[in-house]
């Protein structure tokens, strides 16, 4: 380890150091605001020290590779984590029990996601996945006095542990066959595998890893935990699961199979296409049946991951840029959506039924306006970032002539519009006359309001002026 190496991995160090510092501080003196500020400082330092210019070639590390791509994803993940934390700050204020440990867990989970984005070895890959998952077990059940949260936490624990076991077994099989655990070296062996007659050990190992990754991403048919955990987890943690956790695993997937390496006709292409189609259809169709906003967003996230797979499969640099850009727009929209849910909720009293939002626009116009903008973005309508994102995805798909996938994307996203419209419409419905005394509307935290304002600004900025971000992504991907 030379000083140059250290400077390259400084974002990891910042996040890890912040976790340790918070842990020590909690042991000495409990202060909610100070803990929060310390956490945010750690995350800000991580973003500030991103090694944009350090190429991977100059600093080969045994387990990690910090290229531009890792830097971009680290920045994205850490920022999204900071966003969730800003919402959590106001949310947890209403929580009576110990609150400071929440930040330690969030920092550790973020560290796991960042390790995933920069890992170049099965060891770091697994380390990242476990850091992320184990922290999330506790986070999902964080307000532990509520049954719903605990139930979701246990559910997530059981299923995530099984999926980790799958990944571990898969890695073992692949290692046994190829004799290497470095992702760069294993990749070529996996990608070229034909649809029939491949090496059975390798195939079995790959299948097991895909089960694990599919689970973490919430793709069909490994999606069953998604709606329950989204619903059961406290809103800021759901925002974290939807963004940082999935984003980290997606980054690892892109690392494992850089865009363009999956040949049409290979077994991988076939499997991913099937998963993408199933996810797009199942996610959008099942969301139609829901009456809970968090569950609707959960199913829609299944569909959105399916959309991203279309661009992922389209290959070439365009596919990679499209996935990255879409992930950004998705992060903004989903963070904003869960942000609004968070500022309206409190521990043990989540605003999640669709009826809770009836007439929101006439009661809380700004919040409803922000939520509408986020929903419009998820639906892919213009002026919002999601419009450009969806356009870019379809562009990548058409460019690679993946007609089946593109047509399924078009059809299923039209179905998807139906439930987005339903949510939107609920905001604008005339409210029934209140029965009996009405609880006064709660003021929400300044940090939440500011974060929402920033997210809305970013949403429109990316929707209207995406050119600078395209530049950034293209320099990173090439």
């Amino acid at each position, binding site marked *: 380890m030379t000083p140059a190496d250290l400077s390259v991995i400084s974002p990891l160090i910042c996040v890890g150091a912040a976790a340790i510092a918070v842990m020590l501080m909690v042991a000495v003196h409990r202060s909610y605001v100070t803990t929060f500020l310390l956490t945010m400082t750690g995350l800000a330092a991580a973003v500030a020290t991103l090694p944009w210019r350090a190429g991977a070639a100059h600093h080969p590390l045994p387990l990690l590779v910090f290229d531009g791509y890792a830097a971009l994803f680290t920045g994205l993940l850490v920022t999204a984590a900071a966003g969730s934390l800003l919402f959590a700050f106001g949310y947890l204020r209403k929580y009576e029990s110990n609150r400071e440990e929440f930040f330690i867990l969030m920092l550790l989970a973020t560290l796991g996601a960042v390790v995933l984005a920069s890992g170049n070895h099965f060891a770091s890959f697994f380390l990242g996945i476990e850091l992320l998952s184990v922290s999330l077990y506790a986070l999902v059940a964080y307000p532990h006095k509520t049954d719903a949260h605990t139930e979701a936490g246990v559910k997530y624990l059981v299923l995530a542990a099984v999926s980790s076991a799958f990944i571990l077994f898969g890695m073992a099989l692949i290692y046994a066959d190829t004799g290497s655990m470095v992702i760069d070296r294993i990749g070529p062996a996996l990608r070229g595998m034909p649809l029939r007659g491949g090496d059975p050990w390798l195939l079995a190992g790959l299948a097991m890893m895909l089960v694990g990754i599919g689970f973490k991403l919430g793709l069909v048919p490994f999606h069953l935990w998604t709606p329950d955990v989204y619903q059961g987890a406290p809103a800021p943690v759901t925002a974290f699961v939807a963004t940082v956790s999935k984003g980290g695993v997606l980054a690892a997937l892109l690392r494992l199979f850089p865009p363009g390496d999956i040949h049409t006709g290979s077994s991988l292409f076939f499997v991913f296409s099937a998963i993408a189609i199933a996810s797009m259809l199942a996610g959008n169709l099942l969301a139609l049946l829901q009456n809970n906003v968090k569950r609707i967003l959960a199913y829609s996230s299944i569909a959105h991951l399916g959309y991203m797979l279309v661009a992922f499969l389209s290959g070439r640099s365009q596919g990679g840029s499209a996935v990255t850009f879409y992930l950004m727009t998705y992060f903004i929209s989903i963070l904003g959506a869960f942000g609004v849910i968070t500022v309206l909720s409190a521990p043990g009293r989540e605003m999640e039924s669709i009826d809770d939002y009836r007439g929101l626009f*006439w009661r809380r*116009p700004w919040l409803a306006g922000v939520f509408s903008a986020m929903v*419009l973005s998820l639906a892919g*309508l*213009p*002026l919002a970032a999601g*419009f450009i994102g969806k*356009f*870019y995805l*379809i*562009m990548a798909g*058409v*460019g690679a002539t993946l007609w089946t996938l*593109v*047509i399924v994307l*078009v*059809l299923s*996203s*039209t179905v998807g*519009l*139906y439930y987005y*419209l339903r949510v939107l*419409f609920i905001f*604008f419905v005339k409210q029934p006359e209140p029965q009996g005394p009405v609880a006064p509307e709660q003021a929400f935290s300044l940090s939440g309001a500011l974060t929402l304002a920033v997210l809305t600004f970013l949403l429109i900025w990316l929707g209207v002026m*995406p*050119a600078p971000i*395209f*530049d950034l992504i*293209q320099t990173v991907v090439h």
Partner: protein
Amino acid sequence: MILVWFIIVPAAGGLLAWFLGRMNSTWPKWVALSAMVINLITGVFFAFERVGSTGPWLAEIQLPWVPQLGIGFFLATDSLSLVLVLLTALMGIMAVASAWTEINERTGFFYFNLLWVLAGITGVFLALDLFLFYFFWELMLVPMYFIIAIWGHENRVYAASKFFLFTQMSGLLMLVAILGLYFVHGRSTGTYTFDYMQLLGTSLSPATAMWLMLGFFIAFAVKLPAVPFHSWLPDAHTEAPTAGSVILAGLLLKTGAYGLLRFVVPLFPVAAAEFSPVAMILAAVSILYGALQALGQTDLKKLIAYTSVSHMGFVLLGIFAWNRLALQGAVMQIICHGISTGALFILVGALQERIHTRDLNRMGGLWSIMPRMGAAVMLFSLASLGLPGLGNFIGEFLVLLGAFRASVPLTVVASLGFITACVYSLWIVQRTFHGPNREGWKSPDLSIRETAVMAVMTVLIVWLGLFPQPVFTFVNPSLARLERIAAGSRHAMQIDGPITAVLPAQAFEAAFSQHGECP
């Protein structure tokens, strides 16, 4: 720069209206009205200033937007676009006027949506970068959805969702087609661009051209609407508030016609020519089907909605006949249908505001209490049935004349639509205003505001019926250019497939030009 203002004025007006609506419920009306009046006045001045200018565009603006993907901010107008922009401003004023007393709740948000639909429509008429076009195409949907879903009538949510899903679905198909064209062009020339001017004349294999053309065609046929893509229209028109119906019938349908004129035929001339028999059959079916459906309605608003299907069938027929007469007719029909149907929707809205029903069976004898309204309904019904002397006649007659050169049987079938049009138009007047006033309706006649609106529309429809020539002279260069572009790309592909003339039509043309109608 003026082109950007055409879009910015309503968009900024919308934001202002929303903002002011939080304080006062009358200010948004005035903001909306002034925004559209500003657009109309600047548009008219601009038209007079640039009339007879020889360049390809009367004005254009081209800025880089997302250069990495070849997307530019390219707005341009020729006389055809300008006429439609003027129509947008005019119908916008009419829509604001018709909503003046009808919309009393959440006026700020209502006028925000209204102005943003108008901004989106103006953008559609001006955009010449295919991505930008798609952007505006989608932009006009959401506010229209809100207008129907929030301020509509009984079954509004169903109607609004149906409208949205139909147009969104077809819009995505168009996007896929746009991207297909983009990649084919990029691979053959090395320049990846969405610029309309550069994409013209892209050489395509016949099968590719047909698929891409169908992607565009379906999107525009849904908007137009042509049978079998029309089923959203009766619901949306019926459930929308008056201003919404005016915008839908007067402008939104026209974006489909404009798209066919500007994009489908010039970009894919060969495929469009091959497809034209099918499109013309769809047009003839739409004309008859819409008219027959109209005959069966008892809901007055739904009746008028179905007549739109019929009248827009003429536009489709004219565009796919693709000769000068038919195109002039189609443009005329676009303008006149906007005015006459818009006026009818305003009148029905005014009627419903007074007697709270749209059921024809409960009406009758209203002439005695509302003679001014009766006269206005009479006039626009006559326009709708194609009475000579009113604008619609010129449009439909020229379309039939042009279509005759392309296909005699279809022209014969289409002209049957005139008979049914007579029946339903006269029916509207007879069942509403004549006969005994069985239910004992009592209500005030048209107010000064409503009378003024009707007076403007009447003057326009009569003027267009008696002196259509200035309009033709104005749009002719654009039509000639579109024809040249289509012929040029067809020639470039080394396939000469003009739409076959069935009869020596020059005789008709000569006879017609003697009457001074056609240059």
